[in-house]
């Protein structure tokens, strides 16, 4: 950990604020409701930084702001010393392959009308397609025969592996994992977590993991931030967070993880 701390952060988020328009009264005046309030954190190369919190606390909004799906109202998102929130679409596009998301709902992440082989073809360069496809499939533990299948012909675990392989196909440095195993069964979730751990080592990846499940987070994360109502309550190394939680809400989450 100490060695990673001395490095330059791969991602640095400073005082990030994300807002969504709401229209409570049904009138013409639109108000903005903050979903992320003054959130700051750094992720160092090779590290897994996790954000834990309940639904609606703003976890996914942070990922969406990093990817440029929503515009940050305030603050900066520095990736490789460039502020993503202020880049032009063209400049952002050049950096985009280095940051790859893996979403919770693998069914919506895969085009139901495309075969798996065609899904890979979209991201791989023509002259490297065959060799790289084999390599990618091997890295996520899938056989070559699934290239002819449509997404509906695969199991949940296989679909999530395809999503992971597609994310890896553009050689990213940072993976944004938004509840990657939440909709999986326990036995499949464990397989995916094991795969993520090995991919992190072999591909030298950095993870930003978002989850409400602390028992999964503690298998992957080096540092954890606890989030509630759009704000970070605390961020600590995992072992320290589990042994010495500073906030009552963190204690509740830890107790619930043991209880549930």
């Amino acid at each position, binding site marked *: 950990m100490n060695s990673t701390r001395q490095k330059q952060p791969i991602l640095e988020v400073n005082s990030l604020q994300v807002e969504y328009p709401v229209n409570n009264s049904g009138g013409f005046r639109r108000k903005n409701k903050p979903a992320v309030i003054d959130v700051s954190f750094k992720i160092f190369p090779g590290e897994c930084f996790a954000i834990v919190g309940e*639904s609606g606390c703003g976890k996914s909004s942070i990922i969406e702001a990093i990817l440029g799906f929503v515009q940050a109202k305030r603050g900066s998102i520095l990736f490789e010393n460039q502020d993503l929130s202020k880049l032009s679409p063209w400049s952002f596009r050049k950096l985009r392959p280095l940051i790859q998301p893996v979403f919770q709902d693998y069914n919506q992440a895969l085009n139901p009308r495309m075969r798996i082989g065609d899904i890979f073809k979209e991201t791989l360069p023509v002259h490297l397609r065959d060799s790289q496809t084999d390599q990618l499939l091997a890295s996520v533990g899938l056989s070559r025969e699934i290239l002819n299948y449509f997404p509906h012909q695969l199991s949940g675990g296989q679909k999530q592996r395809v999503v992971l392989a597609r994310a890896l196909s553009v050689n990213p440095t940072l993976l944004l994992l938004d509840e990657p195993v939440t909709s999986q069964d326990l*036995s499949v979730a464990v397989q995916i977590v094991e795969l993520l751990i090995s991919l992190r080592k072999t591909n030298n990846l950095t993870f930003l993991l978002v989850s409400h499940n602390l028992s999964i987070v503690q298998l992957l994360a080096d540092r954890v931030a606890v989030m509630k109502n759009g704000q970070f309550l605390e961020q600590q190394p995992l072992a320290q967070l589990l042994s010495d939680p500073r906030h009552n809400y963190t204690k509740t989450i830890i107790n619930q993880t043991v209880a549930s």
Partner: protein
Amino acid sequence: MNILSVENLSAHIHAPDKTIYLLKDTSFTLKRGETLAVIGESGCGKSTLCKTILGLLPSHFQTGGVLTFFKDDNTFVKISNRDGSRFKNLHGSNMGMVFQDAAGSINPLFKCGKQIVDVLKEHISNSPLRDKHQAVQLIEKVGLSDPTDVFNKYPHQLSGGMSQRIALALALAGNPDLLIADEPTSSLDTTAKIQFLELLRELKTKNNLSLILVTHNLNDALRFSDSILVMYNGRGIEYRHTTDLQQAPAHPYTKALLDIRAALNQGRLPRPIPGETPSITRSIPGCPFHPRCPKTSDICRDTFPLSTALSESHFVCCHHPLETN
């Protein structure tokens, strides 16, 4: 005293080239006032089991087996074939169901209170004023503060946890003896989930309800049930009292699930079960778990293990059950 007895229940559909069994030869008994947890992975037939018990399967499904519901007055209803009217007599006043998707089980066009009053009208039929009063009481009973306010709200004005509580109030409105809850907490946060399960337990004790709790969360099953039915690939493969099952599972699949849970609770990376969960549409010769089982032998590849009673309240479908003593 039993409330429900299920013998060799099965449900299948005819595809153009084959017959697909979504539920096969599943048997168990449920005692009055007890909670049975049905656990298993997605697509293993848990929801089909609930719908078969309630007679809610679509008309193209064929069902088999015998289902016996024992009523309060020592009479019983035996249903051996699909019989819509018999099931309908049991719905609401004898058996209630809470579905996984709360929002989908409440009509979005009517206020919550009106929907509960409609159920009361159908099953209990008091005066309109008493129905309204009873509906408000029910809303309060399922733990919602300010019940009069919730009575006048539309479903879209409620949060996920509140909607699930209204769905529970609807199921309880007919004053059933048996409540079937199909993954009632899968769309809820951890806090809301534990609150809801605690509420179910409290209501169960107060109303002497019997409960079938379908879940894929082993922790919830172990914490809130008296006995557990483990399902795999459309079959009930092990049934036992919860505490005994937790200490000494007989089926290798049950043991693998319990090992994963134990490792996760200790913060260790569990050893995953090798292979993939088989699709229910694919017919696997022999025991469906044999490609993933550490104890596989030739007989497992050829013959499905019949249900073996290891004790009065413990059965297992395995050629090589683990030592349970």
